[in-house]
């Protein structure tokens, strides 16, 4: 640390331990970022929606999972889910960062008629 008086020329065990942990942490972070920069996903945001089947049959709530496999983050993601009977509901995700997954729930008035169709209606790229 910068404030230490440098009367002592040898570092003690605690200092070496803190340095060791710090060096490993910094190396891991830089290593991950380098890997992500060169081998990670590039290009625009790429959102994939997945519907999770209700845990019990006859449930009116549909769980929506959205994953961003693209290179950029998405903001204000609106996902719409429609049932076969054209009953629709939507859910908004404030942020879906690159590489991240978010989930939400859409409630229907009645258990929706299969098959369900999901689409990303809009989002902003950041």
């Amino acid at each position, binding site marked *: 640390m*910068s*404030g230490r008086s440098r009367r002592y020329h*040898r570092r003690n065990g605690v200092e070496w331990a803190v340095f060791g942990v710090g060096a490993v942490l910094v190396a891991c972070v830089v290593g991950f970022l380098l890997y992500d920069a060169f081998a990670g996903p590039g290009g625009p945001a790429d959102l994939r929606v997945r519907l999770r089947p209700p845990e019990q049959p006859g449930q009116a709530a549909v769980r929506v999972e959205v994953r961003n496999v693209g290179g950029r983050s998405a903001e204000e993601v609106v996902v719409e889910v429609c049932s076969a009977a054209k009953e629709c509901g939507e859910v908004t995700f404030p942020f879906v960062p690159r590489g991240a997954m978010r989930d939400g729930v859409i409630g229907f008035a009645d258990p929706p008629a299969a098959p369900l169709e999901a689409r990303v209606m809009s989002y902003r790229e950041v």
Partner: protein
Amino acid sequence: MTARPIRESLQEYARGLAGGLLFSLPLLYTMEMWWAGHNAPPERLLVIIALTFVLLLGYNHFAGLREESDLASDVFESIEEMGLGLLLALLMLAVLGQLTADASVGEVVGKVVMEGMTAAIGLSVGTEQLGDITQPERLRRMGREGEIVLAGLGAVLVAANVAPTEEVLMIAVETSPWALIGLAALSVAMAWLLLHYSEFKGAGRVARTRLTGFALGGAIVTYAVALAMAAALLWADGRFDGAGWVAGVRQVVVLGFPAVLGAAAARLLLGAGLDEGEDE
């Protein structure tokens, strides 16, 4: 050649942690910083780490207490501070509920880097400033480069808390050009005033504080450093993305004011109590 007592090291780490928290707490509680963290592409985070490392190296070099500070110990200390800063950010973000179970590794790394780098600067300054060590010979070594590093650090310390806010952009786009020119003029005036004040506080330091030959020169150089730091902070927070260059320059001028206050007051903020023993 004896090693430092463990107790003394622990005291220093405690001081550093206090400084790191004091400085980065407003940023840990700012949602724009979390967003900037998970929206930042990896290349930007790498540049932020590199810039912070350079700033820490510079501060450790010029604020070091030994007459001849060597590169190896500057690097050692900078890595210590960076590691502790990352740990502190990780801990605080977890406690503040910002590291949720569904977050990806990239998200966590982005947030921790964004918050951790400011914490590392706070740690560095905290160890120094919250201590009771007063070493007159320290500033004596500090030439023009030292002054610039100190000014840059002061600018970051003050402006980092303002940079991520929406208000900078709001002021930047809504203010008339004449008001912005006025703000720039006020910035230079404040720099001059603060530098002048810090000059007569330590009576003998006239020659050193003045970065150039003429009276306003120091203020202008200080403002240039402040503008550079303001631009770096805005870039790090992603405030230039899609803003266009006019809005970009306007934002730099708006953030330049808090930055120049930090830069010009750096001697007062970071060099307080170190004025004795000046002998020019």
